[in-house]
């Protein structure tokens, strides 16, 4: 390219490419800009207004955020979201990695199992929620029948109990997503060279030592990536809870997304709901940022 004349042809090439590039991107970009970019930007305006269903937005400054500070339901929703994330993330990580390690071995039926593990992920939330509600049924459901069978006389009430509804939702969430993340881990495991394991074995490393010193470092990038997606997915959890428990009993499973939905679409307080949305946005953004920074520091 160095031999090319620098002045006019170059500039016209840039022009031509710009026009060509944009005309390819445009059909998708129009829809994308209108339905994603504009709303994301508008969110930061709406949150400072008192927009309701009749639609005159009045600038109210930080009033929505001050109201949020004293809103007990908001804090409950935030606490429950964190509760879900704190248990869902490590459980899913462990289950997905465990399954991936299992499937990475020479066993029969591995292909069949991979299909099975992926099944929950492609099944709709509505069907999943209704089945699990039946399985968790306190009196007659098979989960409690099993628990009674192994000697637990007073099994939990699951979705009918304030203390146990969140664990029930966490179990179902983990069950649904572990197959998906397993697939990502499996792909990561394939990139670890077999020679590393052989060398470790020759040096007399036990299976556990091989896992800690070869597998875990080898999966570094995959684990980071999975954690980031898993975190965002946990913070935005919504449809599963909406269909399974509707946030109840009481407010025991009310999460941020659902609170936004309730304020915005049920009570038509668009301004206030947007302010809560910003908290959700900041939560996802902030935690992702911290993860990126931590990852970079770890790489040094």
């Amino acid at each position: 390219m160095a031999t090319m004349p620098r002045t006019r042809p170059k500039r016209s090439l840039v022009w031509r490419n710009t026009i060509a590039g944009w005309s390819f991107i445009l059909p998708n970009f129009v829809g994308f800009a209108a339905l994603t970019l504009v709303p994301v930007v508008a969110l930061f305006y709406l949150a400072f207004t008192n927009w309701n269903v009749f639609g005159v937005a009045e600038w109210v400054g930080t009033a929505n955020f001050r109201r949020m500070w004293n809103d007990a339901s908001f804090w409950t929703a935030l606490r429950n979201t964190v509760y879900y994330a704190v248990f869902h993330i490590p459980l899913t990580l462990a289950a997905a990695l465990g399954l991936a390690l299992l499937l990475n071995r020479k066993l029969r039926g591995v292909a069949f199992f991979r299909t099975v593990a992926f099944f929950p992920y492609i099944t709709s939330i509505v069907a999943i929620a209704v089945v699990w509600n039946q399985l968790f049924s306190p009196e007659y459901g098979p989960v409690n029948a099993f628990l009674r069978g192994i000697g637990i006389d007073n099994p939990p009430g699951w979705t009918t109990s304030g203390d146990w509804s969140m664990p029930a939702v966490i179990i179902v969430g983990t069950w649904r997503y572990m197959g998906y993340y397993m697939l990502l881990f499996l792909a990561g495991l394939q990139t670890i060279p077999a020679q590393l394991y052989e060398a470790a074995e020759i040096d007399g490393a036990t299976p556990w030592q091989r896992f800690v010193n070869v597998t875990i470092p080898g999966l570094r990038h995959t684990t980071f990536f999975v954690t980031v997606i898993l975190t965002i997915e946990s913070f935005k959890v919504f449809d599963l809870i909406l269909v399974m428990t509707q946030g109840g009993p009481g407010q025991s499973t009310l999460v941020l997304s659902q609170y936004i939905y309730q304020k915005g679409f049920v009570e038509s307080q668009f301004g206030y709901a947007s302010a809560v949305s910003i908290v959700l946005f900041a939560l996802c953004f902030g935690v992702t940022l911290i993860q990126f920074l931590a990852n970079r520091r770890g790489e040094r």
Partner: protein
Amino acid sequence: MNRPTRNAPLHTTYPPGRAMTTTDIRPTAAITVAGPASGRRRPSRGWRVAGYTALLLAAAALLLPFYWMVVASLKTNNDVFTIPIKWVPDPVVWRNYVDIWQRSDMTTWLGNTLLLSVTVTFLQLLTGSIAAYGFARIRFPGRNLLFLAYIGTIAVPWQSYMIPQFILMSKLHLSNTLWSIIALQAFGAFGVFLMKQFYETIPEELSESARVDGLTEFGIYRRIMLPLSRPALASLALITFVTTWNDYLGPLIYLRSPDLRTIQLGLNTFISQYNAEYALIMTGSVLSVLPVAVIFLLGQRYFVEGIATTGLKG
């Protein structure tokens, strides 16, 4: 599911020889999910037994809900919850599968959902594959920044901007029409991302020589890139179809009229209407899952490839 051997050698690389003849143009972004690395020592007997036990237990835990769904859909309503639990329906009640059509608007729901899923998939393939070409193959100022905006929004939860989006959609008079769902799903950044990842594995020389031969950029896309990216298009089509089929939140917010309901929305109203008809509810669930299950089993390879390539959900 009955014939696991069919899926046995599941290579998650897009097979290099399939559309292209040179072997050195193997996609780099894709990852192989094959059997265990060859040359590794066979595990000892004890390990194998433990492995099989764990596999069996995990499979049981994963499949139990599906087994319950099918079995309960074939029971009389009184037989769904019994002590002890009946694990085999006796008598087998096929009637549920007839009754559900009369007691619900299943036909409307399935029709709406099919219409939406097909339209969205078509549009996403079209706009996604075209835009991805612009990002992957044409150099122009601001391109990378623009692409960053695309990728960035994948990480922004939809739940956080659904309110402004809804207001916008209402202003455009699209809410409470099927168009809202089409608009919502058809222009996703995911398709652009997946296709771009794939295009970048196709060697630049191919398009260079086509350019020398006088093909326009659109000609290169249409005649060279598109035919070569059939596996990636298949992945994108399957993932988009299933995502649209399963979507619950979009229809919940945008579709208010009963005659616009999708299968997920319809099933959920049915559940709250007949909340004691346990067997019939399971029948509806089976019917809502069935099309997706069939599509998944037929195109499983492409699913896995698409997800391993992008690592992102639709």
